[in-house]
């Protein structure tokens, strides 16, 4: 029988980043899927070998613009495992707060995109609108909407002041009813149920074979979460629960992600309770990294980020292996897409929330017609500082 190849990518409205899927189709049915990657590969593992241990945290933040604190947390865990360092308690809470804020914004981003891919743009607009205040908190606390530069080996770089806490609480309090409304609207919607239920099912056996992670695994009833299984940061110090579903379809993945947002809010609120009114170190000095090897992992919004580092006692890593969750999640398409129709495959592809790598940032702005420089790097940094100042002023926080 003649097979037709339907290409998705490398540049396609469905994908946020370049990647290529070849769908082998027999009529409407997909009979095989092939995945090609590497369009955005930047060799970060290699670059990491030429950076100082401390510089690497900034480098690996650029692996992903959406989960840009997950890789640094995993890396810091790895180096702290190597050097056998315990971080101060205050730093643990701050790590968890930043990590969970990131999870909320990432999950809302996915819900919005999923709605958009299904042609349900109201969900897209709601979700992205409610995500925006979370980014405002990020900018207020860390100075950046993304690439927060909060983590360092031995602790965190910036403190969360008492003055910031009431505003973070207020924004989260305001987010809760909106999130409940969005969750209700998505989970009760008959159109979404018709499009997502029973589509792209992954069984627990598939998850085991492919080593799939995060919400993808939890939606198939595989109860794994690095935050609980390997307690680090403040995850062992606060009350929360791991969300799982049994069905394994795209709908279950949406349920897991939406309900996880509420757990994240719970974690942040408890961490804020533990920060308020207390003083303490936010980092310890880690000057020398001894020879040896270390492993660190962290539950990013998409699943476990895994970092392996090896030191020979010098100031740079000898080897730094990075395994992002999508590397394990994307191959599951072989199990979930085959036998589905082309129309459903688009949302299945989006269902694992595939994220490749994103580092594109503007450094210089030119006028297209005259080729004259309008803004250079320092102007852009100045603009960014002004914007952060504006946000802090808007929330009534005085700068020191």
């Amino acid at each position, binding site marked *: 029988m003649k097979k037709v190849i339907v290409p998705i990518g490398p540049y396609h409205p469905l994908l946020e980043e370049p990647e290529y899927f070849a769908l082998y189709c027999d009529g409407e049915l997909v009979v095989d899927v092939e995945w090609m990657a590497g369009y955005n590969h930047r060799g970060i593992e*290699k670059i990491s070998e030429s950076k100082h241990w401390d510089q690497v945290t900034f480098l690996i933040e650029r692996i992903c613009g959406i989960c840009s604190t997950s890789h640094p947390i995993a890396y810091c865990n790895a180096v702290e495992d190597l050097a056998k360092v315990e971080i101060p308690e205050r730093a643990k809470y701050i790590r968890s707060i930043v990590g969970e804020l990131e999870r909320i914004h990432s999950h809302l981003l996915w819900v919005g995109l999923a709605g958009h891919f299904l042609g349900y743009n109201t969900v897209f607009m709601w979700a992205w609108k409610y995500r925006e205040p979370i980014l405002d908190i990020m900018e207020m606390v860390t100075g950046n909407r993304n690439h927060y530069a909060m983590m360092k080996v031995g602790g965190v770089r910036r403190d969360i002041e008492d003055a910031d806490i009431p505003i973070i609480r207020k924004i989260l309090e305001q987010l809760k009813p909106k999130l409940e409304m969005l969750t209700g609207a998505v989970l009760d919607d008959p159109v979404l149920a018709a499009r997502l239920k029973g589509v792209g099912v992954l069984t627990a056996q598939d998850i085991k074979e492919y080593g799939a992670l995060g919400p993808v695994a939890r939606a198939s009833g595989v109860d794994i979460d690095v935050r609980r299984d390997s307690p680090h940061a403040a995850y062992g110090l606060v009350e929360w629960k791991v969300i799982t579903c049994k069905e394994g379809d795209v709908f279950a993945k949406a349920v897991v992600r939406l309900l996880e947002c509420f757990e994240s809010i719970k974690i942040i609120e408890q961490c804020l309770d533990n920060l308020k009114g207390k003083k303490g170190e936010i980092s310890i000095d880690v000057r020398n990294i001894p020879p040896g090897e270390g492993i660190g992992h962290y539950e990013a919004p998409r699943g476990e980020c895994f970092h392996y580092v090896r030191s020979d006692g010098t100031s740079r890593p000898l080897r730094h292996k990075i395994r992002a969750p999508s590397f394990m999640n994307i191959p599951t398409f072989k199990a979930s897409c085959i036998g589905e129709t082309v129309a459903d495959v688009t949302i299945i592809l989006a269902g694992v929330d595939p994220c490749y790598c994103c580092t594109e940032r503007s450094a210089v702005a030119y006028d297209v017609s005259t080729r004259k420089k309008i803004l250079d790097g320092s102007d852009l940094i100045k603009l960014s500082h002004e914007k952060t100042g504006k946000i802090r002023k808007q929330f009534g926080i005085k700068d020191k």
Partner: protein
Amino acid sequence: MDILETLRERFSDKIKNVKIHTDKRIYIDIDKENLLEVASFVFNDMDARFVTASGVDNLDSMEILYHFSIDREDVIVSLRVLLDRENSVVESLGSIIKGALNIEREMYELLGIKFLNHQDLKRLLLAEDYPEGVYPLRKDDQKGKK
């Protein structure tokens, strides 16, 4: 430690060396001939999750660390295999773990390690026009230094 006991009992003659970094991180050195058997036992019988594999160029040898996570015990077991650098060949784990196929492709193109009986050993990330026989993650690679 139960995990280590179980492995020692089962593979007393096949485990060459054990390094216990902390009680959560165990590194076990094995010969490449025994890799499939030990990995299959850890993955299937001990119900570990395959995390990934790290290829390391030691200049005098090639090294692969197969990381397995036993989530319920919070332990990561890494199986270490040393290969001849000029002729680095090892059996593919793809027949027992589908999730290992892509990382093997990555090690093949970036470090030049060949995997026997891999069902689809071709490039994963590098461009089609990248020269053959140049392995960018090797320590002596000159192309990446420009």
